[in-house]
């Protein structure tokens, strides 16, 4: 026998189910009067520093059908590359930027939409700079454990080319699944759960 490590196991994940809106976006689910507003609906205000952008997209299943019952959360750095988090030790992030957003996909069209700013570059563990990116977390009925991925910016070719995370992708044809093309101030990021265009998901 050896000494026990006395470590616990993480609680096992279970699907968010079809009614995730009741818990996480009750106003969207027409349950009014419990919370003044749904959390994560607004990431910026008039004073937020940085370039205003819109991120839109859909989550598509193995047949190409958009999910109308998914919920997306995003997490990103501010314009200077700082996170609005107590674990951020490099400085104070923009107090007018939450860095975190939550949006259910539209019950009719399946589209999600975030009004945010373009993040700055954040260092990798070895000090190299990562390209600007937004972390995505997707939950829905049929998804047994939340899926993590990242959105990179289509107009940041040079930064994307030196990003240490993108460099880890063995099958180079898949890198494009993480890169959102830009049109005006809008980036479109469709997430494919399966199939030829399956998005790269991360075990972080």
């Amino acid at each position, binding site marked *: 026998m050896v000494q026990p490590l*006395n*470590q*616990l196991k*993480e*609680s*096992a*994940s*279970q*699907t*968010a189910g*079809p*009614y*995730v809106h*009741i*818990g*996480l976006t009750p106003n969207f689910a*027409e*349950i009014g*009067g*419990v*919370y003044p507003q749904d*959390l994560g609906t607004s990431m910026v205000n008039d004073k937020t520093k940085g370039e205003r952008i819109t991120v839109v997209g859909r989550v598509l299943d*193995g047949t190409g*059908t958009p999910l109308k019952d998914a919920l997306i959360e995003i*997490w*990103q*750095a501010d314009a200077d590359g700082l996170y609005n*988090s*107590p*674990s*951020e*030790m490099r400085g104070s992030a923009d107090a007018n930027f*939450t*860095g*975190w957003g939550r949006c259910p996909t539209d*019950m009719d069209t399946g589209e999600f939409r975030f009004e945010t700013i373009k993040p700055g570059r*954040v260092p990798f*563990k*070895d*000090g190299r700079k*990562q390209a600007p990116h937004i*972390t995505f*977390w997707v939950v829905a*009925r*049929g*998804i*047994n*454990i*939340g*899926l*993590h991925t990242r959105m990179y910016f289509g107009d940041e070719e040079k930064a994307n080319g030196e990003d240490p*995370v993108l460099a880890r992708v063995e099958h180079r044809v*898949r890198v494009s699944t993480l890169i959102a093309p830009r049109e005006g101030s809008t980036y479109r990021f469709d997430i494919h*759960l*399966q199939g030829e265009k*399956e998005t*790269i*998901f991360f*075990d*972080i």
Partner: protein
Amino acid sequence: MSDSQISNRKPETGAFFQRDREWHPQAYTPWYKTSVLRSPQKALLSLDNTLSEITGPVFGHNILGELDNDLITNFAKPGEMAIGPRIIVYGRVLDERGKGVPGALLEFWQANAGGRYRHRKEGYVAPLDPNFGGCGRTITDEEGNYSFRTIQPGPYPWPNGVNDWRPAHIHFSLFGHGFAQRLITQMYFEGDSLIWKCPIVKTINDRAAIEGLTAALDMNATIPMDSRAYKFDMVLRGRRSTLFENRMEGN
């Protein structure tokens, strides 16, 4: 949003322990039919946490309303209450090192006593309770403790097999201190024989993992003549220590 009052402990900045993907459900579990077309089929790309995953949003108590942790009254008309068996759900949020997680935002949602959700897409014949909304939230205290009051939800049938029923359950969403800790799970009730028949529960392979999602009836925490109590602890990923972390030259 970040609130330095939540804890006077020094913030932790280590990467999180690797997730045990065999303990968690697999993505592709064909007996839970919806997973078939919604499960990624390619290998996940393993990534030791960067700052993007080590950090995460933290929520202050200022977001909480007075009734947010009382589902019996938070949607009810003044002076009225939701119908059903009155219960208290309490416990701790710990990390894998056994440390309490202070300042964790917990959001929960559930069906009413008849097993009916208040949702546009819900079609079960059981009636809505006009005094029950079905959502609540709270933030853990300095030791990771939480509690809320609700009614015990009913089991409900769902379209999967022709006669599949969900055991009574409460959905939980948890935020720890890093985005890599983000977790959604469900709480089941001790003694519910539907637990072991449920295709969604069976997405988890490990019996101990399922037992870890099953709350215990705690008669010592009940309020006599008022509410029974269930104890439900939850565990989030632990953090590696940064004490002896390798540093690349020049950093």
